[in-house]
């Protein structure tokens, strides 16, 4: 029987459902035979069993080798970092949030981290106590504050409703995750300049030793990264087709290439259209960056383009998965 491995995915929390959607869109749909069970399968990755875990437990399970791969938030990975872990992809493109330092709005003398360092010193000198910070991220918070030369602080570990801590009175400031800042504002708190500890999103992690030891695991990882990389790359592109009148393929190509936005990944494909009467027509096919869609369409129109069709690109496969190549380099393994 071939070797089987475990992919840990978040079972609940804000990134659980987006993870399911992300994998589905990447062509890696997770089937869960029994919604009450914490296991599943991905038909395109037959050597992987899916195990649903809490976001923090995904990190623990991958670090201790119970699972070999996992998807969770980068903030949780950094907070619970272990040298057994390796980050295979740190920008899966969803679950964005920032871990920030937030202070009471009434602290109008504090706009940046330098001001906060002075307040920490003043609190120490005036009240003979440390600045109290409520957070569920004690490790990242400690690193960040020491790095910014703030040493006199006490971490108040809390679970949930962190943003209420200064109002209740058991902390002076907080370090918490925020997406829009609304919750901070509602609690009379404000982020400060230079106070973003980490900009987080969903990431794919692996167990370093397991990936080093097992070529079968590396192969499953390669397949997974092929789909993920190609799907993420595809999001940036549209495929355009347009019918253009012209004397020759060379002439049409030259007109299309007049504008850099319609250059395509390499160059446009020009095919003759058969069955038209009178003029010679060609179909131009090219793949363009999503950000230049309208500019490209406008250019095709100006050179006589008709029937411009734009289709989203599902995958762009390059020569190889860049993330997998980076993984091999990180593990010091040859391809």
């Amino acid at each position, binding site marked *: 029987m071939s070797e089987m491995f475990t992919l840990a995915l978040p079972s609940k929390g804000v990134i659980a459902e987006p993870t399911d959607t992300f994998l589905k869109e990447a062509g890696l749909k997770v089937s869960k035979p029994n919604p009450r069970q914490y296991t599943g399968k991905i038909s395109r990755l037959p050597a992987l069993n899916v195990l649903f875990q809490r976001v923090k437990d995904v990190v623990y399970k991958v670090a201790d080798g119970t699972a070999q791969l996992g998807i969770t938030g980068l903030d949780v990975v950094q907070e619970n970092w272990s*040298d057994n872990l390796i980050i295979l992809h740190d920008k899966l493109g969803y679950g964005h949030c920032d871990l920030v330092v937030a*202070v*009471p*709005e*009434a*602290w*109008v*003398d*504090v*706009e*940046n*981290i*330098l*001001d906060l*360092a*002075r*307040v920490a*010193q*003043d*609190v120490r000198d*005036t*009240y003979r106590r440390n600045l*109290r910070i409520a957070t569920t991220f004690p490790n990242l918070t*400690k*690193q960040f504050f*020491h*790095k*910014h*030369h703030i*040493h*006199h602080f*006490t971490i108040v570990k809390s679970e949930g409703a962190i943003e209420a801590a*200064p*109002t209740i*009175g058991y902390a*002076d*400031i907080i370090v918490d995750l925020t997406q829009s800042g609304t919750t901070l504002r509602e609690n*009379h708190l404000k982020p400060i*300049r*230079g106070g973003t500890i980490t900009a987080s999103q969903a990431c794919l992690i692996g167990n370093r030793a397991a990936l080093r030891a097992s070529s079968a695991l590396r192969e499953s990882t390669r397949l997974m990264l092929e789909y993920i990389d190609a799907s993420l790359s595809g999001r940036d592109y549209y495929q355009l087709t347009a019918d253009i009148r012209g004397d020759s393929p060379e002439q049409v190509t030259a007109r299309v290439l007049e504008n850099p936005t319609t250059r395509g990944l390499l160059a446009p494909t020009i095919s003759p259209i058969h069955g038209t009467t009178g003029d010679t027509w060609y179909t131009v096919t090219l793949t363009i960056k999503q950000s230049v869609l309208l500019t490209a369409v406008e250019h095709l129109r100006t050179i006589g383009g008709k029937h411009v069709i734009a289709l989203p690109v599902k995958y762009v496969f390059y020569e190889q998965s860049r993330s997998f190549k980076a993984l091999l380099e990180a593990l010091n393994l040859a391809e």
Partner: protein
Amino acid sequence: MHALNLRKQLADFFYQRGYTWLEVDLVEHADLFLTRASAQIAENLYMFEKDGVTFALRPEFTAAAMSHYVRGAYQTPIRWQFSGYIFQEKHGKPQQMLSAGIELLGDAALQADVEVIALAAQALAHLGKSESTLYLGHVGLHRHILRQFGLDAFVARMLTHASQQLTLEMLVQSSPISTLNTTEQTSHILNVLLDSTRYGATMGGRSRHDIVNGILARSAQHIDEAAAQTLKGYLDTWTAFKGDAHSLPTLTALLPFSDETTQAFCNRWQATIDALLAQGIAAEHITLQPNLAHSWDYYTGCVFAFVDDNGTVLANGGRYDELGYIVGGIEVPATGFALHLEHFLPRPTTSSHQKEA
């Protein structure tokens, strides 16, 4: 040589030169070390709590020695030596390193600086490391120059030990008090403070008085873009400069101020170098590196490090005249050094004492 023999050999060596033994506690209140710690020390300090009090395993000997001196109300200069394990945290566990050194407390004289640096050189020669290079820097001169830019001690420390670029950016962003008289910012500040009174919004454990003082302090430290550029130019010069034993006049000529205190700092530094040369330290083994950084920001004067050909810091120290005030409220002129003994033991061990310069 085993650790015990090495320690004994050094203890005899220092004792013969007038340094008596000081036993330093392994565990102290963490605050003692956090007071003037750098990020590297604070981050790696092995701390633990007992009955709500935070303790730490000693990461060095100097702060504890000064605390001992202050409590003992000594009147005359004291020469102490110490040795033993010091600790830092690595992956949640304490990691120990062997250290030894001396402190000369209660003596502000130039000769005390020379005695300590020369003694470090002699101790290294005694241990067979006479070929190391002596790097000399000066924290006091740097701080004085920063004060001439109108920066207070807090900002000077941040510029010296935290991120220079970030600190500069934030100084430029600080609003000067003059813009608070008429602008929207004034009404915003008043409204926020009034709201906090009306609706009981959190003050985060600070009073309105504290916040007004904070506004004044940050406003006083505001510098404009032009001043920031001048300051950056000075910081770049200070950081990049590296010269031989005779290069101090060149450095002095590059300084942006030449007031009496600056001259006094430079004259004393030059006298220290001359005295070290007279003591037999070869000129080719001396390098001036003004921004020589140490893991502690309590240094106030001439600082030094002995570095071998591999870039390993074998010993370092310097003058730290403010530490007495910080730990005990009295001014105590002081200087000293520590030897990083793991580099002298036969088995190579991992060390954090890599070249900091």
